[in-house]
């Protein structure tokens, strides 16, 4: 059975806007993004491009991030790679309580 844990990872107010940060939770590398609207998203910090690479350093526009190494456009909401490229990045549930950002893994 899978256990679900909620991990506190950052202070909401300290998160930079439109600049991803890299978070390591045990073996999971996670990229956390706070976008202009104030929403926070968490994705696996790995480009779905077959050659890999990180996502946390990508350029953020609206609710999308561009893979910094291969320029694929990826939805922060569902991890879906935008056409004409294809693929999907794992996303994590994020919640904010009392200025604390939690990720469910």
């Amino acid at each position: 059975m899978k256990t679900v844990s909620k991990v506190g990872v950052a202070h909401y107010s300290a998160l930079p806007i439109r600049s991803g940060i890299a978070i390591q939770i045990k073996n999971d590398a996670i990229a956390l993004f706070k976008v202009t609207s104030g929403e926070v998203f968490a994705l696996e910090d790995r480009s779905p491009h077959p050659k890999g690479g990180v996502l946390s350093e990508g350029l953020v526009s609206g609710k999308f991030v561009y893979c910094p190494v291969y320029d694929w456009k990826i939805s922060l909401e569902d991890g879906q790679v935008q056409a004409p490229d294809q693929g999907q990045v794992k996303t994590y549930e994020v919640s904010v309580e009392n200025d604390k950002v939690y990720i469910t893994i």
Partner: protein
Amino acid sequence: MAKEKLVMIGNGMAGVRAIEEIIKIDPNRYDITIFGKEPHPNYNRIQLSTVLQGDTTVEDIILNDWKWYEDNRIKLFTGEAIVEVDTKNKIVVSNNARQVSYDKLIFATGSSPFIVPVEGVDKQGITGFRDINDCETMIKYAEDHQNAVVIGGGLLGLEAAKGLKNLGMKVSVVHLMSHLMERQLDATAAEMLKQELQQQGINFLMEKQTVEILGDDHVTGLRFKDGSETEADLIVMAVGIVPNKELASNASIPVNRGIVVNDYMETEIEGIYAIGECAEHRGIAYGLVAPLYEQAKVLAKRMVGVETEPYEGSISGTQLKVAGIDLYSAGEIEGDGATKAIRVHNEFENVYKKVLIRDNKVVGSVLYGETAESTRLFRMLTQQEDVSQMTSLSILQPAGEAEESDVASMPDDELVCGCNGVTKGTIVEAIHAQNLTTVSEVGGCTNAGRSCGRCKPMISQILEHTLGDSFDGAAQKEAVCGCTTLSRDEVVAEIKEKGLTNIREVMNVLGWKNEEGCSKCRPALNYYLGMIYADYKDERESRLVNEKMHANIQKDGTYSVIPRMYGGVTSAEDLKKLADVATKYNVPLVKLTGGQRIGLYGIKKEDLTSIWEELDMPSGYAYGKTLRTVKTCVGQRFCRYGTQDSMGLGMELEKKFERLDTPHKFKMGVSACPRNCAESGIKDIGIVGIDGGWEIYVAGNGGTDLRAGDLLYTVKTKEEVIEVSSAFLQYYRETGNYLERTSKWVERLGLDHIKKVLEDKVACQGLIERLNKTLERYNEPWKEAIENDEIKDKYYSRYQADLVTN
């Protein structure tokens, strides 16, 4: 008069193509019946690889849907195999005991996977890779099994392996030979391929011969000749195919490896034809669609009584359809005594190209890592073009001009975009179907042109050719990106006119389609604003990773650190610091770069700031759209030929212009005599010392599009060199398109025009002033990061979070 009855056995790619061709010429000629063993209408078998790799679905690969058969009044029996042909009474019999009589009969039965005859092949868990059913079997296995073994390291095997890997299985490929795809690749290319696939997670068992399949009812593993074993829950046989010829041979139609046909696809029995993989023509049974489609044309013409050239055999090229791998091969692979090879092996970028030439004609080519030239090479191969007048460079480099006139005659299945595997047919179809009018729209729909971009001129020609008069050259006005219809010049004019001062404002006022832009326009706008306003406050979030981080990202997410070494001159102290840092941080690679300095590679992002601090050297900006290096030769200070102080001037130039934002990267070189040891002829600005003066060359390029610099001026003093360089640089900054190197820019504007501007005293003075004003705004970025905790925190930390369950 009743129509003649045409029956076809097999409802696959080659056969149905032949029927299409027949209908195209004479739709009323035959009363057509098709039997297909599979329960589907005709689909694109080639795309099974992409279905398995998860990129498309079965519905997407249907070539002729049910309606097509209806519309063309074709009787179709699917899921029904023909089991007997009675050539005497001209009747076929199906496994449902249906009998249909014919006047003309086509065998289009394709082939079957070859199943290696070893002990245990009758167990469950073994499949070929041939049809939708096989695909579904594999997808199903992947749901609850772990280990897949693919026997056969050829095209099909590797595509199957990649598919299974994408489905989440652990995959091993067993191959009998010492290198993969030995029929298409030489040892070097095969090794590069293997490494790439290994990186993608596929395991290889080379030079292994399977002797037994283990397990009770179901497979559990394999045993090899050398006694070793490996585990397997699923085994895919991909060692080759065998033409489906039994039905014909049982009917006493002559067969050999396949059903024997002549140059018109006729068997030896009157009124009976064979086409596709089941047919053997001049000793060859083809296994790729290109030749089969040629056969289809000839057969169709023959059957409707139109005169046709005979089919005389084909040469075809092969690609591997695995994401992230560019590979192409055609013709001969290994040379013999009479062949001469042109070989290019760029290990740094993982590119390998080999072209085999015999008697001044290309007889084969293997391309790995970059396949843009495949179309040209393939044409040279098939048309037996005489290459004695070409330089080897133009064989490997697409020589724009020659290429261009040919779009009209290019067949639909010719590859246009080697990087993304898009054919002319696909592009033309997309243009028609989706009313496309620009190269970037074509890219959006088909992927063509989105990688290396070499094929863009050809796509543009196809657009022009396809749209004819309705092609509007003006529509080709390059918009900055898909977020706007405005071109670079329009955007820059609007910014100046309306006094827009930041990116957000530009996007709002100019009606950007995406509120926050994209990875193309954001860096470009950031540059244009910085070019217009000398005191512009840079927007770091709109820079792409390298410039945002002031370090070049590597493929594994680490970074490189390349400090300044002005003019390529260093000191014992600096070398010591570099050595100390490399030791302390266990730097995986210390390398002399092509720009005369030292690079540290493979550095973790959280180590960047401490390394910079310990080095205490300024950033070399090896990552930026800015001045990179000024290469120098030793010159007058030591060299017996030197006429000028090249190192001195080089260092001065580098110190003056470092950090300046430019449309694209900018490189300089200073040599102290015409021997030109600093390669000034291929620099954006290259300076060559002569007796009593300096020559200034511009717009040289040593990169993608090799170009020798043009002599701009010969001047007397180094002050003049600095003035001319400043004015030239600033004019480039003010008129260049973002990401346009000086080589392209000078060609666009014309050298004479640029000279005219520089010779206008007032204009020139203005340029120099604006440049100097802009240079004032820069700070050393590494120092800034070390000293500013906010920056350090925001860009250079990795957060560790502890796992606490709530």
